[in-house]
């Protein structure tokens, strides 16, 4: 691949104000996203996956966030230093985002039409009639039956799955080049989750956009992403193509996570659990942040923070002992 990436996140570090000073939410996060690519970011609570996503659009409250370090290059421009006015044209226009809970992202006192046309009129200068016509087309596009009638409904009249479809319609209204989906199916029932994932896949192919899908669910990631970042306690611990990751995980945390997924297709009487708990962001851990829970940790893991090492074939993992044995002659 010689083309320039659509998005290039470099050494991104974000700190939040906490009772006891500054807390590092994510540290030295870096990755590239190509045009049309589906990137999955997987991690548990506190891994920093949502902080990473929100940082791309600078959606953190300025009063509680330190100025992030690093660069976020979109189409060659740095989103972190871009003037607010310019950023507003990117947000919702070229880069759109959908969230976990569609109910709290939709305005309860506005109709579906009002909310979709707001985006269209802001970014595309459509008049009222043209915006309404486009809103109905968009509802069709997200497979909402009876769109001309549904467009005048209020959010509370819609099911959770319908609301998420409306959110997706708003997000794709301006044909974004990048869609960031933060746990878009977590609040939905299993059969509805399957429908929404299918819709996102179809739209991604139809519109040729890139998607960053954030999820705690490895199953969702496996079904959607082409490339995956695994995050733990604010850091990327592994990066691989989806097939590499699920076939042969390199980081012990990825191993543990995969083994702990409840299987619907096999009888596993006792799931192998990862011992211990996810560390609190304020907790100081010397060396590798996973080492207190890692069964393979050796003295050097506790002494020195490991770097994200190149493991060949475009893979990276933050585990010197494992990568060392991989590359040893």
């Amino acid at each position, binding site marked *: 691949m010689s083309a320039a990436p659509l998005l290039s996140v470099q050494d991104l570090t974000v700190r939040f104000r906490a009772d006891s000073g500054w807390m590092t939410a994510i540290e030295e996060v870096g990755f590239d996203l190509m045009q049309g690519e589906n990137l999955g970011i997987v991690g548990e609570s506190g891994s920093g996956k949502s902080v990473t996503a929100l940082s791309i659009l600078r959606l953190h409250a300025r009063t509680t966030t330190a100025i992030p370090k690093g660069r976020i290059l979109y189409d060659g421009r740095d989103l972190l230093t871009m003037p607010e006015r310019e950023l507003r044209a990117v947000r919702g226009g070229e880069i759109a985002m959908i969230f976990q809970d569609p109910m709290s992202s939709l305005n309860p006192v506005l109709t579906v039409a009002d909310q979709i046309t707001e985006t269209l009129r802001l970014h595309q200068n459509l008049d009222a009639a043209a915006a309404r016509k486009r809103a109905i087309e968009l509802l069709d596009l997200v497979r909402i039956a009876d769109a001309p009638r549904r467009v005048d409904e209020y959010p509370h009249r819609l099911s959770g799955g319908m609301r998420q479809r409306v959110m997706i319609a708003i997000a794709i209204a301006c044909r974004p080049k990048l869609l960031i989906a933060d746990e878009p199916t977590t609040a939905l029932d299993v059969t509805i989750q399957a429908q929404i994932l299918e819709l996102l896949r179809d739209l991604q192919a139809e519109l040729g956009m890139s998607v960053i899908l954030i999820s705690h669910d490895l199953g969702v990631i496996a079904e959607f992403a082409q490339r995956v970042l695994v995050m733990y306690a604010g850091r990327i611990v592994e990066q691989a193509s989806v097939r590499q990751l699920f076939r042969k995980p390199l980081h012990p945390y990825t191993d543990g*996570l995969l083994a702990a997924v409840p299987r619907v297709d096999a*009888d596993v009487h006792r799931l192998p659990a*990862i011992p211990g708990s996810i560390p609190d962001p304020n907790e100081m851990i010397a060396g590798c942040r996973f080492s207190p829970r890692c069964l393979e940790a050796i003295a050097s893991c506790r002494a020195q923070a490991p770097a994200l090492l190149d493991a060949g074939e475009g893979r990276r993992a933050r585990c010197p002992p494992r990568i060392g044995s991989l590359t040893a002659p």
Partner: protein
Amino acid sequence: MSVIIDVRGLTKEFAVGQGKILRAVDGVEFEIGAGETLGLVGESGSGKSTTGRILIGLIPATAGSITLFGRMITGGRMPPDIRRRMQFVFQDPSGALNPRMRVGDSIAEPLAIAGESRRARQDRVAELLEMVGLPRASAERYPHEFSGGQRQRIGIARALALRPEFIVCDEPVSALDVSMQAQVVNLLLDLQEKFGLSYLFIAHDLAVVRSISTQVAVMYAGRLVEIAPRRQLYDSPRHPYTRALLAAVPRPDPDRPRERALGGEIPSVLDPPAGCAFAARCPLAEDRCRVERPALRELATGHRAACHFA
């Protein structure tokens, strides 16, 4: 197997104003044996949590019979001596613990109500904490000092305080991270082995119940659509909804061939369709399904399904 829970024709209706009746649970039937786990699976609005709440006596049934530990419960009132043999573990361990109470006091509360002495309570709390894998010193701390997984352990310790024989676990791991889920499920399995506990384990998907259940029941729009011993349910599901639910679980396997997702949504229980509630989404549905409600039929020993084509 000695049956300790026997439910027949269990029905729960709620009046929702303007003379409307919402039938949340409609004719549910199952048995749970001593030391066994029934996994009860369904999506939002299926009636699974309401079923659990009725069993434990939190809300009365509208119709049907419940036999608990050999005694038939009538008139909707749960006799205190029966109630004492059962407990509940909730989905959200933070919401179920009083944030201003020390963990030890929360766990000891049922013991205090049962009239145990302070000394006996302290000893029992220490013993319970150890049982669920938490240090004894946890008793002096407050819920916010613990992780989600640890709080669920505290909830389990409290549920065990009065030595129950049957526990309703309502989505006990749904709010937990994957790496914590396995720990809590394994703890429930250990406790079951040790004390011969029986569980009703409620969940919204078929993956997590597979590792804990001896029997699995699937609910849809208030009705039981299939119930079978674990192996049979996963290996030869007979109801099209069970098959759809199995197919919908995302698997950590990027090479799995993708099937088209099941369309449509669960019908409102306020205005249930005549005939089979699943007919509108069912790939097999014929005219008959839209008018005639399928009965739950026995297909093999312990395996029943409510489908005309099963």
